[in-house]
């Protein structure tokens, strides 16, 4: 019983050591990169630019008739 607690604790320590060792980027840099991505892709985001009725695949289809 207590041996498994020891094993568990060793695993927790090992995991924390690993997580503590990573390199971290400044939040200001991370934020700038996220913003840049959004801005660069905004024109290609249909939910931002809107979808025109003629190209909207979900819009109920009008029935074509022969004149």
């Amino acid at each position: 019983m207590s041996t498994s607690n020891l094993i568990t604790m060793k695993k927790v320590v090992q995991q924390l050591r690993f997580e503590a060792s990573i390199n971290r980027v400044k939040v200001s840099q991370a934020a700038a990169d996220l913003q840049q991505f959004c801005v660069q892709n905004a024109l290609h985001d249909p939910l931002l630019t809107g979808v025109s009725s003629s190209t909207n695949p979900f819009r109920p289809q009008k029935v074509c008739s022969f004149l």
Partner: protein
Amino acid sequence: MAAEKAEIEKLKKECDGLRKQIETARKAVNDGDMKGASSGVESVGRVQLKKRKDLKGHLAKIYAMHWAADSRQMVSASQDGKLLIWDTHTGNKLVAVPLKSAWVMSVAFAPSGNLVASGGLDNMCTVYNVKAASPKTLRELDAHTGYLSCSRFLSDSEILTASGDTTCCLWDLETGKQKVIFTNHIGDCMSLALSPDQNCFISGACDSLAKLWDVREGACKQTFSGHTSDINAIAFFPSSNAIITGSDDTCCKMYDLRADQEVLHYQDSGLNAGVTSLALSSSGRLIFAGYDDFNCHIWDTLKGERVGVLSGHDNRVSCTGVPEDGLGVCTGSWDSFLKLWN
């Protein structure tokens, strides 16, 4: 016994020390406020999407949905014991897959479109070939000791699952066996999302933590805390450098992977319902989050402001999805309907 007790105490102290070390390291790079940094970005204004289609066919609560890679087909799962594959352009049902167990909680479409997977309280992930003349069970992945909350295909030969048994698992579909087991959560895993390059995935669990994993090595690379209740929904920001989570604590949060910390939270004093599901628009600028209050609220990812709402369901919104081409949003609800918006 006493020696072991002493060693455990020593390890506990080391844990506390390491946790402090991580917090200090995170504070050291916390040189800016995401909201403040975004003050220069143009506002998206009010986002008003229209409901374009109601998809009627299920006879009970819908628990999950997933878009096919073609951005046209979509699969939904309901506790009426069926999976339905829809042609979202026409609104027609293409395939109905009867389930052995009606208690379904998750559904996924393989990128090829050939396979779908589902599972729930049966603790299994069942994979079906939906291109056959009638849907055929290909594999029953049976090893989890808790419910199946989420699954995502990497390809026709590999699938990731998340379970109430607190583990996630990578399976080989050719053999039906587990390849890698991901253990580290101490609460039920509720949701997972695969990174665009398929090298990593993220999981959200009832221990209120989100974790980043290496798919091949099985290692947990990073852990994100901050939520105060179950994380029900999780997604990658499209650049792969950040993740968004949604929780029963009524908040959504964005964590940046490179800064290793929360950079923004999405919360409104008027919103007191838990978040059930979420999806991002193709540029990542909008978050569509489904809530227990019957609505899907729209958030500006960068500014943290609520910018719109998709209203119309008569019960909890249980699932939300944006297709790869970004042309719309699908919401699924306990009211048994799916709605398409853009």
